């Protein structure tokens, strides 16, 4: 079973995305902010895919991606960024920091699973 790691400071988002993903057969792990995610990555969390919100207190999504890419086990892992329609510029920054792609909020289940299928082989 593939593991997806969600990072979002909004519990509502975490809840709704987790539900969609779990129904689709993924194992889901979550963190409420970038620092928490990063410390989990450092102590051995090894998801197949990371989805992170961009706007979070503390580390932003982009900062988290930049830090995450420095961790050897996370060099090649697909990382998706949650952005809003208006954040086109952030996507450029995100890509430069190492993001694989992005999702635009609000995220419909169909789109979410579609994008995951697109970046995660074997799903």
């Amino acid at each position, binding site marked *: 079973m593939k593991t997806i790691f969600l990072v979002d400071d*909004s*519990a509502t988002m975490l809840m709704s995305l987790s539900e969609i993903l779990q129904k689709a057969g993924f194992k889901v792990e979550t963190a409420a902010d970038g620092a928490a995610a990063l410390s989990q990555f450092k102590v051995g969390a090894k998801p197949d895919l990371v989805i992170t919100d961009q706007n979070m207190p503390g580390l932003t999504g982009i*900062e988290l991606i930049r830090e995450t890419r420095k961790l050897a086990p996370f060099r090649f892992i697909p990382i998706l960024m949650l952005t*809003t329609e208006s954040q*086109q510029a952030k996507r450029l920054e995100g*890509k430069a920091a190492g993001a694989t792609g992005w999702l635009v909020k609000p995220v419909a289940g169909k789109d979410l699973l579609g994008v995951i299928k*697109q970046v995660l082989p074997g799903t």
Partner: protein
Amino acid sequence: MSPLLAQFIAESRDQLELIGVGLLAIENHPDDLDRLNDVFRAAHTIKGSSGLFEIKPITLLVHAAEDLLDALRSQEVRFERAMVDRLLDAFDHLSQWLDEMERNESLPESLETTARELGATLRVFLQGRDVAAPVESLTAPVFADLVWIGQWAEADRAALYHRLATSAEPLTLFRYTPDSQCFFNGEDPFYQVRQLLGLALLDIAPVEPWPPLAELDAYRCALRFTGVACASLAELTTQFRYVPDQVTLLAATPETLAVPTGRAGETVHGGFVAEALTLVDQEDWASLRGITETLLDTYDPDTWMASALRWLLRMLDSTMPDPAAVRLLLDAIPAQQGPDWLQALMSSSAPVVAVLLQRPLSEIEQAAFQRVVAEQARVLDLPEDPATWAGRIGSVCASLANALRYVRRTDLLEELDEAEEIALSVHTAEALRNVLARLLDDEQPLPDEEAPLLAKVEGALIDKSALKTLKVDQTKVDRLMDLIGELVVAKNSLPYLARRAERVYGSRDLAREIKDQYGVINRIAQELQGSIMQVRMMPVGHVFQRFPRLVRDLSKKLDKKIRLVVEGEGTEADKNIIETLADPLIHILRNSIDHGIEPPEERLARGKPGEGQIRVKAYQDNDNVAIEITDDGRGVDSAAVKNKLVRRGLLTVEQADGLSDHEIVQWIFAPGLSTADQISDISGRGVGMDVVRTSVERVGGSVTVHSQRGVGTDIRLTLPLSMAVTHVMAVELDGKLIGVPMDIVVETVRLAPAAIYTIKHREAFILRDRLTPLMRLRRLLEMTEPATGGAALATLVVKIRGESVGIVVDNFREGMEVILKPLDGVLAGLKHYAGTALLGDGSVMLVLNLKELL
């Protein structure tokens, strides 16, 4: 209600609190970018989540607010105070809508109009700001030619051509040259290509000749994917949306596949092309077909000519051959090369237009690009460390290359490569700095948003690595609390059991073992209790959050200038205690604003600063949490209080004269005493400070006031940190156990009836040289009193509001720890009881609220 909706509502309320606090802070410090970011983020979160539900008014309104906040944040609009008013107003509406959602799970449609109107009041501020909508623009295709289509076997292309002739599917050509570092972005180009809709033909080739196997860098992508897909341009654009800079797309016609291949150089029958073109003009497809078939037989199938004729026949197979396409193919025959389908596509009047995935950069993108470049420049300027030099240069260049590709400045990539090489080989970043300098736009200095990034990242790591927050429904914690209560009760039955083991079964050893076990369980239960109490602890700041808004709104209304200083927001106490605090504190605050702080003119006349100050300070004081509300207003007029007390008959003139000013001032907490000359709509009518005392005392706290006329008032609330476990003294009354909160019990005495004095129908006794009032609990509870003869009376000495009182009970029992449950339902009105507690033997004990009873 669905858990998700409930979660959304709860979360949005939290965010609204943040927004409220933040907006007020911004009002005073408009350039506080951190605050602005906090508020923006909170609004953003609400909007993001609201999209999950069908609640358009909320989404609409928050969207407008978010846009304004974003414009403020990026300094596209200048701050105006009116913005805060409008934003606060908008979020107030939102708060009401959330309440409505909680009740009905939906919002009336009419609110959509309200939301638009409110949104419009916010968007007014955005006028004049030009919103550069990204425009898709058409530019020249980047495929130089389409001859490469001939690389696929004719049979494969022919099969595809036939399929398209019958299905009328769209056809799109693509060339995807992934970034060489793309694996480090989590990309898998081959997988991406395999996912393409309607992928029909694919070629995978290296972008440059392969190095020897021994020199291959496995993690550097050096492939190019070229292909044809039966999908629309839009569909492929979507599929390649994460790598637009690495892809060339072209919407094509089926004829594009008709690229003849094979051995060239055969003789061409001169008359064929001319005759064929005439037949095309006449649209005599049957005759054209005839002469083509005849000619085809004369060529070796391997030749270019045979291939061209076969393609011609395929075109003619169509029910409606396209004359233009047929002509183009015929035109290619004399030279035995081509045709140039790209030309055809470009000049075609059909809506088949070549589109490059390119559009001008928006200003935001330009700014983002500048930030990326600036950040790289900053990284370069960090103190050098030979150990990390190569890594730093590599990361700078990778980021720059990505950014360059995104903004389509691929012309600079080569220069960047060179600069990287120089930097790595001779260890100087001059060349790289030059590239950066050229990219940095000197005319537009950037907001220094990214600069302190590294420091910020480090800070965040230190601060928060240990911080993991879990939001739990309070009912779950309460349930846990109940269970622990039951565990404590169950545990308390063990000493009984030990006693029985010894007395009834005569086994002293067993009794001892049970007692040992009891000790262990007791310790665990206590720790468990302590832990769960920790869970229930929350910072008092939670309540303080509402204050700035209150002070702001009220002072505006009253034309007063007031500065609010809040200290010790982090002080923690039990959630119930905190919640109890909210209303009394607001009441006190209102009083201070309304009656305490003078209008500016009056203050100035008295030699005080025009701006009054209210200080709210929380701190921990042993097992209590103390909160002080201090103002520098006019203070309590003790003479007025005294007059009122006498006038209302609460005190005689003599009694009143015997009291010090300080003692008089305490009377402001007495029911029905309001000292304000006028009743205002702010602190209200009839509800005095007695409400404050009642609610504070209900949770076992106390309140005192210090006031000096003309100088100010200081009100101090003291509350227990936790109300989860209560120490009670059990007493016997009419054969039943009754609890008395231990914190008010001073001592127990056995009182000989002879020691009791009766003064004016009231009983008293001498305790350590002081005359102390004496009450009989049976009388207080309206129970009959049996004759006790000359036996000593079990008397509990308690201290209530600083006064010692003796309480006669039937007998004393042990002190115990209980989990006090407030009375529910109809019983909740019984103020004489603080609640009930479950005992070790399973019985229920009532716990008295003596402060109310006396």
